[in-house]
């Protein structure tokens, strides 16, 4: 037993080194813009770049829409499948796993071919249409995570009993979803939302191939043309991701803990 603890520390130590060293190295590199001594010049340079502000703003907006669309299609579907159509569950599990198996680059290639300007649904024919397509692409990328977050949320609150209790008191289905289910799974939905945001904010492949002025392609462009700013951007991205994940952790403490049934 003593031995297992020793090895546990060794593995933990090696792992920690592998994960922390690149962050330290990146941070150190980002401070070296001014010759001779450390400075935050690279960060100042990044933040004052109008393209940074524009692309970051654009990606944030697209991310928010992706979250909104994701919640609107996932929550009712999970609710009704859990409650009334349980035989559809395996199918739903399978479909929501697909984005993990079909690479994003294949998906976006399909979009470009299927929804080009001469097709029935010419999404890529206009800038707005392409923006919408980008939002939908991000919803697809985040689908596995959003689905699992919402599904876990609904499992812990035992929606069946809640719904039946509400029905006995005469509530309508709309009322039940809006007033009872949603508030109870809010934490789960927000977890899915932050995860979506973390995935979407620096996404490169889809945004680049749809030619949208998003943060991911901007990062790539800076990387190809600048020396110190990329390190600063890597640190900023890491902090953004950390922020999104930190929010999920903080939210987790407010999650309902009435796990009545663990089916």
């Amino acid at each position, binding site marked *: *037993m003593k*031995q*297992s*603890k020793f*090895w*546990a520390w060794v593995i*933990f130590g090696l*792992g920690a080194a592998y*994960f922390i*060293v*690149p*962050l*330290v*190295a*990146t941070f150190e*590199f980002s401070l070296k813009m001014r010759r001779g001594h450390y400075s935050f010049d690279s960060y100042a340079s990044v933040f004052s770049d109008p393209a940074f502000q524009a692309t970051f703003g654009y990606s944030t907006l697209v991310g928010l829409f992706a979250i909104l669309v994701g919640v*609107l*299609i*996932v929550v*009712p*579907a999970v609710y*009704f499948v859990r409650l*009334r*159509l349980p035989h559809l569950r395996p199918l*739903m599990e399978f*479909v929501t796993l*697909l*984005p*993990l198996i*079909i*690479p994003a*680059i*294949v998906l*976006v*290639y*399909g*979009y470009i*071919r299927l929804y080009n300007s001469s097709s029935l649904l010419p999404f890529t024919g206009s800038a707005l249409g392409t923006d919408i397509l980008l939002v*939908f692409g991000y*919803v*697809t990328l985040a689908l596995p995570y959003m689905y699992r977050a919402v599904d876990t949320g609904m499992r812990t609150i035992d929606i069946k009993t809640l719904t*039946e209790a509400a*029905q006995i008191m005469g509530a309508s289905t709309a009322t039940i979803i809006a007033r009872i289910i949603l508030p109870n799974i809010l934490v789960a939905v927000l977890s899915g939302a932050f*995860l979506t945001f973390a995935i979407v904010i620096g996404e*490169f*492949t889809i945004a680049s*191939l749809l030619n949208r002025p998003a943060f*991911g392609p901007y*990062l*790539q462009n800076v*990387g190809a043309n600048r020396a110190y700013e*990329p*390190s600063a951007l*890597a640190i900023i*991205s*890491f902090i953004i*991701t950390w922020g999104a*994940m*930190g929010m999920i*952790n903080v939210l987790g403490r407010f999650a309902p803990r009435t796990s009545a049934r663990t089916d």
Partner: protein
Amino acid sequence: MTNALATALKPSRRLSLEWLGVAPFVIFAVMFLILPTLYLIGTAFIGRDGQLTLENIGGLFTGQILAAYWISIRISGASAILGALIGLAIALAIIRGRLPAPLRSAVMTFSGVASNFAGVPLAFAFISTLGRLGLVTIILKTLFDIDIYRAGFNILSFWGLTLTYLYFQIPLMVLLIAPAVDGLKKEWSEAAQTLGASTWQFWRYVGLPIIWPSFLGTLSLLFANAFGAIATAYALTGSSLNIVPILLYAQIRGDALQNPGLGAALALGMIAITAFANIVYLVISARAERWMR
């Protein structure tokens, strides 16, 4: 009971409501997940003249494309297998190694962050670390007189890319395997001990066989994860590294190949390989899970 009663009372209205709730999801999945994929698969079998053909598939079997698939498979395979093994070791260490509890939640949170810290910024981080002017490269050179680049290392190489991919593969493994490791009951190892089994015997006969299906499932997911990844490689190497996603990217951008059918065939090949990895997993785990309900 309540269920049956409710359905019996208002069957038609309830049914339509259910389908109305599920419809947006179904329509979305068909339009933005299933149709585009099927469309591409179809395109792969249609030639320039609009006729059914195997020409595009045949076009995959040329030197450059085969080489691209091979290096993609090797990088994805290496990063998936190493990531899975190291991730499992870390999960075991933090969950069963009697490390302080706060450490465990710290590792899980960090894994959530690091598994999402992929793409372009990750490439920047590794260039700052192991690039020619990276911190580790320079420290090794100045303090220990070890020039890793002269020794043959290159961040733009197979091992460079694998090492970089591990940064998101390992944490993903930790996150996905942790529930399975958690599911190993303390009593199983205690029972094995009272029966005279060594730690190794417990893992050999009980612990690892129980984790095995989850391990394989996660492994195939890690493989697909690396196989489709492009942003990290592209930001690291530009289009100089010949891996499938970069080849497809160039094809879509119109930089090379200029043959839509061949592009679709490339995509089909990617789906076929990730699907194959998952089918292998399903077959093996179905055999391994005889003892499960």
